[in-house]
């Protein structure tokens, strides 16, 4: 059965919503604000987080705004299978928390993220009753694979890899060139970061290998060869595939500044640029995903500015 929402309608609505994105003037005002209260005033003036009941903390206002955005995207998406892929990270976060909470016998319910694909109530109920069969098969499988693990790090690795595997499988059966290209960068980013982080922390090659995921444009054997190499040698191991010039530049920059957070940001910017290029496609998923990612980046920037006050 065809989904009832068409791309022209969804993109029309997104274009109207895009008008509410914070512009350069507002960003300057937020940066110049003396404290969090001034930031809240500026955000309120521009209608940011207008649905928030509690306008006393920036983090709550941001959470309220993102709740509205998530609801909008989920109700508006002409292809929910594709847009749901962008919420699987929240599911991964929730699963890791719940599995680690179960392992360490801690209550983590207050820390859970509300916008995953799996409704929070179903997820919490499944963990309380230890009954997984009412969850989606793919999520049930992730949980079953992780139940016996005793090391929180291993749980994180297992869940992250399983979620990336769900994304890869979904894209095999539900093809979309733009979303495929985006997630190829995400898979590559996972592997590049594992390589750099592993080398920086002098992890064993088996530990680094356990973090690698297939599906990227860089061959995994190239990443494996880079293990143990010095920072200025790393760029030659990412110089394959269609995104080689971007990866090479990012890894070369890392060899100069040695800041892992900068690598993460640059890879994230590169992945975002793939979606951003398609923001004006009136008949594709690009504008919908672009809006979601822009709102997430906006939320993240507001939180960073607030944290510095």
């Amino acid at each position, binding site marked *: 059965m065809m989904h009832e929402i068409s791309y022209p*309608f969804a993109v029309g609505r*997104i*274009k109207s919503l895009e008008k509410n994105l914070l512009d350069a003037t507002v960003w300057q005002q937020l940066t110049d604000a003396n404290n969090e209260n001034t930031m809240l005033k500026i955000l309120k003036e521009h209608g940011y987080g207008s649905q928030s009941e509690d306008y006393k903390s920036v983090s709550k206002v941001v959470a309220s705004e993102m709740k509205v955005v998530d609801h909008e995207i989920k109700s508006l998406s002409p292809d929910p299978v594709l847009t749901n892929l962008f919420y699987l990270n929240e599911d991964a976060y929730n699963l890791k928390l719940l599995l680690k909470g179960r392992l360490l016998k801690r209550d983590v319910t207050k820390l859970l993220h509300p916008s995953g694909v799996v409704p929070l109530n179903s997820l919490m109920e499944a963990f309380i009753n230890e009954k997984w069969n009412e969850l989606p098969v793919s999520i049930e499988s992730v949980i079953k694979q992780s139940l016996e693990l005793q090391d929180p790090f291993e749980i994180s690795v297992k869940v992250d890899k399983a979620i990336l595997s769900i994304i890869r499988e979904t894209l095999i059966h539900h093809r979309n060139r733009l979303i495929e290209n985006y997630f190829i960068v995400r898979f590559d980013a996972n592997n590049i970061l594992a390589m750099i982080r592993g080398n920086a922390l002098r992890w064993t090659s088996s530990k680094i290998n356990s973090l690698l995921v297939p599906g990227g444009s860089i061959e995994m054997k190239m990443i494996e060869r880079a293990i143990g190499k010095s920072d200025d040698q790393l760029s030659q191991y990412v110089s394959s595939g269609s995104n080689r010039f971007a990866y090479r530049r990012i890894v070369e920059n890392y060899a100069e500044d040695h800041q892992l957070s900068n690598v993460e940001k640059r890879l994230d910017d590169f992945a975002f640029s793939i979606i951003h290029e398609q923001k*004006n496609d*009136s*008949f594709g998923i690009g*504008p919908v995903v672009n809006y979601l990612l822009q709102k997430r980046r906006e939320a993240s920037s507001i939180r960073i500015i607030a944290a510095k006050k």
Partner: protein
Amino acid sequence: MTQGIIIAAFGAAICALLSGIGSAVGVQIAGQAAAGVTSDQPDLFGKVLVLQALPGTQGIYGFLLAVLILVQTGLISGNPHSITVMQGWAYFASALPIAIVGLLSGIAQGKTAAAAIHMTGKDPDSSAKGITMTALVETYAILALLASILILFSI
């Protein structure tokens, strides 16, 4: 009624039919975009309505040519002229430019109108630019209509 008249009648039907389908699809595409924009900005209804209406002209052109064929062949008055099979095919041929171009340009114009409506949704002041861009697609429907009329009146 001669065989030539039946072929000419098919020509009249096909130009109204195909260009009408082109317009209907084009207006539908633009209408979906307009609905998306006005669901959040109802005040833009007037601006997006003009854009939504633009792909509707192909249907009018097809209908116009159908009426002209019916007039030329006497079908509209109920007293069809006696025309040969070759003349019938000539009337049919006159219908083809607007029929085919009307179908394709109606859909193409609908897509352009949708993009222009999206542009208007983000920047309401740019609606005039959107109308100009969308109207350019119209050029080819007008040329096709002219070709159809020239063929029709040279029979």
